[in-house]
């Protein structure tokens, strides 16, 4: 009897641990594949990319200097981007959040069609088919959303779809502190 107790206890402890971690993963609180961003507290990496909707214009992070804003990396090939799109529109239209998009590794025509169908939450959209800006921002999946403060410093990053709890917990406090949201 006593011989069986040690392996049994070890098995139960491991099973409990796996169960607990699986629970965290299902709630989206733990992602073993997450690659933590290196950018928090650093200045937003520069880029100058053509605007998806008007290739003669250039989109650059310096356009946004002086306010708190979100940078959202998306593509029509990314299912989570379709899921979060409505919420981005809500943020842009109801909460007045300035959102700049990076359309990453996408077909321009498909990206425009998606915006026509679902609406456009972005002030500007940088078109980045070759990951030029994406690599500088350490992007490895989509959607990824960065918060940049009025001084041009990256303060927050969220990997995965933005929803209400992400907005309230991660992003909103910065807009409130800057007087850009209530």
């Amino acid at each position: 009897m006593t011989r069986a107790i040690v392996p049994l206890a070890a098995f139960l402890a491991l099973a409990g641990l796996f169960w607990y971690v699986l629970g965290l993963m299902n709630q989206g609180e733990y992602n073993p594949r997450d690659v933590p961003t290196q950018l928090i507290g650093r200045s937003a990496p520069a880029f100058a990319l053509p605007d998806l909707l008007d290739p003669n214009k250039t989109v650059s992070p310096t356009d946004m200097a002086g306010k708190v804003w979100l940078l959202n990396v998306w593509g029509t090939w990314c299912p989570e981007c379709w899921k979060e799109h409505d919420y981005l529109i809500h943020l842009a239209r109801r909460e007045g959040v300035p959102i700049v998009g990076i359309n990453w590794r996408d077909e321009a025509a498909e990206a425009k069609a998606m915006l026509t169908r679902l609406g456009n939450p972005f002030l500007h959209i940088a078109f980045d088919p070759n990951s030029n800006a994406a690599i500088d921002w350490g992007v490895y999946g989509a959607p990824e959303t960065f918060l940049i403060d009025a001084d041009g410093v990256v303060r927050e990053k969220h990997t995965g779809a933005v929803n209400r709890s992400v907005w309230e917990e991660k992003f909103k406090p910065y807009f409130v502190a800057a007087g850009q949201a209530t």
Partner: protein
Amino acid sequence: MRRPLFLIIGLALLSLAHARVEVHQFDSPEQEDSYNKLVAELRCLVCQNQNLADSNAELAVDLRRKTYEMVKQGQSEKQIADFMVDRYGEFVLYRPPLNSSTLLLWVGPFVILVIGVTLLLRTIRRRRAEQSPGVADDTLKTAASLLDTDRDKRDA
């Protein structure tokens, strides 16, 4: 009998052959070496158990192109590795440097080995102690003398 085996080996090799599709021109064999070394040692962030060389993920294609461009510009392997670490963290290196956060990773296997060997030796010692009969000396002497008398009788 042998044919299926060759077929299986051939198919296995095919998967190695298709992984890298781009054809690159280098200025020198050193540059080509650097490039091959880097794409073998940098991790694909999308399919995380593959290196850049083996991955067909789109980001891996772009990171290979970036690596190629930087090699062509004459940047050193260290400069290019630092560039990647600066953006993606040390996770991008398949061989992480030894520091406080990776100490367990480097030392852990050896600690487990030492624990395992210690447990094994203890078990072996205990088993040996259990198996050796705990017979008192005088009992052994009696047994020996009995055996001797037995033999004497038989020899006589």
